[in-house]
């Protein structure tokens, strides 16, 4: 007996304290989580608004999203109108200007935002009445002050400048225009041209047309009961009146017969942004949508295990990241891959991307383990998204807008679970129209010829940064000499070259005082531009009375310097650079092209932004400069230059000149707007003094 007891006790002593925990074994997952999506309460107001209420009393927070019921409108030559209008909705009402509105919102510690078809607000539920008051004020009397309109237009101009050198933005613009085309709202992209066509009146009438209670939705989330919200809405937004909502229907069709290579040139690019894309028909809630998403997850979803990542990054190291996505929308759906790749491997990368997409159609290329991983990942992201009460509200809205089954989201996880390998393969076969896709490449022009192989009819299509056909040059009806002569005569307001030469000879010096302000900056600074015949030039930039920067050239030597506050850098020009500068010195270098042996080249006629120009190009060692002469007035209204700096960076500067006025017989521009890289500067000439004596020091080091 004793022996047995001892044995039992010994056994106890040396057994691991917690039974069979083997730390080397990864624990298994529990059963797929079940969750409850709380029911939303839905009711309609007298003025036609459908209210979706998702009560949540866990925290004293309250938010609403007022979404218009209109279908999107085609904007055509005013593309971007809805965007601009959205940015202006909170700029003031009949009873509150912008400062007052900002203050009212700030005081409550709440947040308001708006876009072209919705207004959103969130804050503490104790402020809900005031928040709804503000909403009612805005929708019924937003008045789009002129000052704010101008400011927003300027802001958009800067954004467009930046966008035109942002490769990802460019690729997305082109995707929109090719996948959806000109007669679809998704295919319209704002450009400087379309922005310039938008007036304040347009914004006002857009708002009237789009913002109406008829067919609108008000999604309310948070700490409020149905009784409370009904009463509050009665006292506010229910009073709002408006016209019929706007309806339209749009179709999407992939009309390609083969693959089309679309190229957008980006000077100096060291990487290519590649998108393999095509549109397709599918509405949200389609029985195939979840299967298609899982197929996409395996092909190019956000994990390292996805096929595109495994091939293009882990195996070939062509890129940091290559993904694919499926975008299903009520008005049109599309598929696209994404990623940036070194220039040298752009063609190889396209080969691999196409190969991976094709392979999804083959039954042996996807394993059960891969499918299980994709499911786990999808279930995980879906579950995590439920944490936000806004997600619940979005689901409720989606069910109504897309006519989904009312339990659609409740069954979501189950539907993911049910997908089989056969489903995956079928989705690939049915939807991955890779042989009729667009291959968009935004990159360095040098690589384009290697990509011809991917275009079914061997013709690459060139588009610009906004998805429009690249503007080329048409043959000029005038010769270079004729154009230069017309410019000289127009600028000097002369009838003959002899007369013009005399007028110019009389001008020994020019001093201009200019006020300049960078886009988006509240400050402006002063510039003084000096010229001493024949080729001494200097520009001095001052801020608050002290010198910030100076560029100078005396015809033999030249350079630039900056004060410590402006970077403290000083540089000198090489003799070649000074010689080049001399070629285009003075207020009318055209008069001296022959004498200075300037090699100018007539490119032709170009139409841009509704304007017509004769374009003349001068090549230099590391770049080009182009002069644009207005086809009607022959004044030089635009210049463009591109040069490569010592470290290989490409710098582009575009300047537009306007408001030409007489200064001692010469027509000179009093307004300039410059763009260089991502910066924009607008300048106004305050005064021009001719033949004033200038202290020569300003042209020297």
């Amino acid at each position, binding site marked *: 007996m004793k022996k047995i007891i001892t044995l039992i006790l010994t056994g106890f002593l040396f057994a691991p304290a917690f039974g069979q925990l083997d730390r080397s074994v990864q624990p298994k*997952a529990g059963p797929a989580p079940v969750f409850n999506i709380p029911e939303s309460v839905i009711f309609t107001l007298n003025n036609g608004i459908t209210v979706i209420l998702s009560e949540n009393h866990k925290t004293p927070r309250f938010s609403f999203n007022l979404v218009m019921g209109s279908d999107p409108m085609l904007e055509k030559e005013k593309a971007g109108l809805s965007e601009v209008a959205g940015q202006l909705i909170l700029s003031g009402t009949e009873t509150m200007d912008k400062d007052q509105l900002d203050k009212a919102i700030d005081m409550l510690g709440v947040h308001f935002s708006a876009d072209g078809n919705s207004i959103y607000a969130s804050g503490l539920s104790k402020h809900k009445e005031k928040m709804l008051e503000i909403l009612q004020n805005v929708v019924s009397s937003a008045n789009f002050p002129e000052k704010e309109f101008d400011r927003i237009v300027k802001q958009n101009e800067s954004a467009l400048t930046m966008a035109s050198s942002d490769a990802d933005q460019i690729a997305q613009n082109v995707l929109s225009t090719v996948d959806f085309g000109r007669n679809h709202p998704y295919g319209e992209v704002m450009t400087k041209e379309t922005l310039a066509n938008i007036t304040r009146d347009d914004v006002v009438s857009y708002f009237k047309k789009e913002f109406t209670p008829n067919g609108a939705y008000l999604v309310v989330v948070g700490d409020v009961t149905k009784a409370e919200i009904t009463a509050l809405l009665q006292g506010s937004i229910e009073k709002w009146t408006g016209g019929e909502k706007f309806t339209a229907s749009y179709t999407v069709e992939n009309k390609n017969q083969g693959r089309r290579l679309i190229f957008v040139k980006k000077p100096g690019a060291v990487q290519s942004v590649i998108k393999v894309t095509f549109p397709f028909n599918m509405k949200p809630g389609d029985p195939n949508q979840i299967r298609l998403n899982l197929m996409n997850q395996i092909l190019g979803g956000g994990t390292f295990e996805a096929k595109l990542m495994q091939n293009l990054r882990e195996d070939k190291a062509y890129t940091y990241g290559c993904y694919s996505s499926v975008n299903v929308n009520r008005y049109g759906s599309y598929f696209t891959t994404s990623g940036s790749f070194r220039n040298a491997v752009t063609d190889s990368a396209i080969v691999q991307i196409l190969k991976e997409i094709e392979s999804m159609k083959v039954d042996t290329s996807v394993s059960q383990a891969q499918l299980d991983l994709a499911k786990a990942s999808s279930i995980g992201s879906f579950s995590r998204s439920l944490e936000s009460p806004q997600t619940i509200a979005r689901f409720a809205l989606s069910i109504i807008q897309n006519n989904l089954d009312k339990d659609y989201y409740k069954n979501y996880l189950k539907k993911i679970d049910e997908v089989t390998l056969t489903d995956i393969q079928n989705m690939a076969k049915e939807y991955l129209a890779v042989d009729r896709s667009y291959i968009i490449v935004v990159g360095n022009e040098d690589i384009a010829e290697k990509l011809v192989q991917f275009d079914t009819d061997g013709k690459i299509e060139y588009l610009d940064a906004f998805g429009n056909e690249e503007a080329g040059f048409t043959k000029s009806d005038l010769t270079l000499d004729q154009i230069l002569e017309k410019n000289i005569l127009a600028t000097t307001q002369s009838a003959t070259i002899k007369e013009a030469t005399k007028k110019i000879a009389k001008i020994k010096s020019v001093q201009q005082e200019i006020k300049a302000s960078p886009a988006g900056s509240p400050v402006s600074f002063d510039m003084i531009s000096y010229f001493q015949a024949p080729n001494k030039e200097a520009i001095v*930039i001052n801020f608050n009375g002290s010198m910030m920067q100076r560029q100078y050239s005396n015809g033999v030597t030249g350079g630039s310097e900056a004060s410590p506050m402006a970077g403290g850098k000083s540089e000198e020009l090489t003799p070649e650079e000074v010689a080049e500068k001399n070629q285009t010195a003075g207020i009318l270098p055209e008069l001296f092209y022959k004498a200075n042996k300037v090699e100018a080249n007539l490119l032709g006629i170009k139409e841009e932004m509704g304007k017509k120009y004769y374009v003349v190009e001068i090549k230099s060692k590391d770049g080009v400069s182009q002069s644009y002469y207005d086809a009607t007035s022959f004044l030089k209204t635009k210049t463009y230059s591109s040069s490569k700096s010592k470290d290989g960076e490409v710098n582009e500067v575009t300047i537009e000149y306007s408001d030409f006025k007489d200064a001692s017989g010469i027509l000179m521009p009093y307004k300039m707007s410059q763009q260089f890289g991502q*910066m924009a500067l607008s300048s106004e000439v305050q005064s021009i003094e001719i033949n004033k004596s200038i202290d020569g020091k300003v042209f020297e080091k």
Partner: protein
Amino acid sequence: MKKISSILLLTGLSTMVFAQEKKIDFTEYDLANGMHVILHKDNSTPIVAVSIMYHVGSKNENPTRTGFAHFFEHLMFEGSVNIKRGEYSKLVEMNGGGLNANTSQDRTYYYELLPSNQLELGLWLESERLFHANVDSVGIETQRQVVKEEKRQRVDNQPYGSFMAEAFALMFSEHPYKSTPIGSMADLDAATESDYVNFYQTFYVPNNATLSIAGDIDIEKTKELINKYYASIPAGKKLNLVRDLEKLTPEKVVAKYGESDAKTIETALKTMTPEQVATKYFKKVSSTPIPIKQPTIVEPALTKVITDTVYDNIQLPAIFACYRMPAEDSKDFYAVQMLNEILSGGPSSRFNKSIVEKQQLAVTMISFPFPLEDPGMAVVLGIASAGIDLKTIQDAMDVEIKKVQTDLITDDEYTKIQNSFENDFYSSNSTMAGIAEALANNYVYFHNTNLINSEIDKYRAVTKEDIRNAAIKYFTADKRVILYYLPKKEDDKK
């Protein structure tokens, strides 16, 4: 008009927002090995945040071994005895989760956000790196490079990136806050493997760890799982003995712990787990948790103005005016937080309206605190508009501070900041990740987990007079550190 080179570059810095807490129910208890556990149940969404906070930060480092705490944060992703190098993150991501970690002067925090049916996975993962993470030369060498890269990318190559290190070094002469978490490359290079092992064995122990879990859990089931993975982790010297048995040769272990003999241990390990071997053959090794000593140095008060000029790769000069700040949870702390909001919270704030918009002296002017466990630092940063002298901005800033020291803020301003803090308080606890961290913070720093619910009352209790007094007491023009950041001169660049 010919080309003009660009000279103006507008930069903006986003204001840092500090999250507050809301009414949350929780369960907390200690394990026998000293680990603290906090559980918050919320079944509305099928997710769970699993996190551990270790009460070790840069202030616990040996002064000749700075950067360790942060370095360890990286090392903890290198795997463990049972998790292969590179697998840790993958395991989380493959299962629909996300993960992250961060290190401060006072603590190191790790968390995973997972679907709730993967709670056990999360517990296992964290238990693995608490119990026996891979702290060896392979991982150390790999992460040394990664940390160096991080320092380059996030500090050295960032405009104004060095300000934290510069400011803390001048503000603190005795307290370990004089070094910042990123540490020095020289110290990290000089450290040996045994330095790293010592750090792990000292600070990565159950009684220095708080396990904080928030999400779709069943309290009883979770407690069982915590028992399974954590209660079984040894404590005290015994934990390190077990770790050593897993990593070192029997000879080394026997030599280190002065018990048993190599042959016996070698044989025993063939049939028994390291824990069983430890229990049976090392009777002298204690399992009593060893308390972690936190530094008790009190930094002497600042008595004057300390200034310094830094030349950096920047376009616009900037001024950093730094003031001593009260410790978190002290009454004054809340007043200072609210004062900061008055000075620079939002477009209608004092600094923004006056200095940025009206006088146009700065492109941005913000006031932000570094809330730390021991008394820390508050910073006012102004980035100059082109051509504006830093002295001009400093004077303008002092004028604004003098105003809040002299006159009470308006009723409207008071209402605004109360609403703003209340809004932050309620909206920050809308995520399980946020709640898990807040619960852990409140326990580790203040041993008052319920602050997650009661802290808002401390803000509500702050009066206009308190704000004025805080301005007088802390934003002292004659006792502060001022850094002037100027663009590098041409020769410096070469």
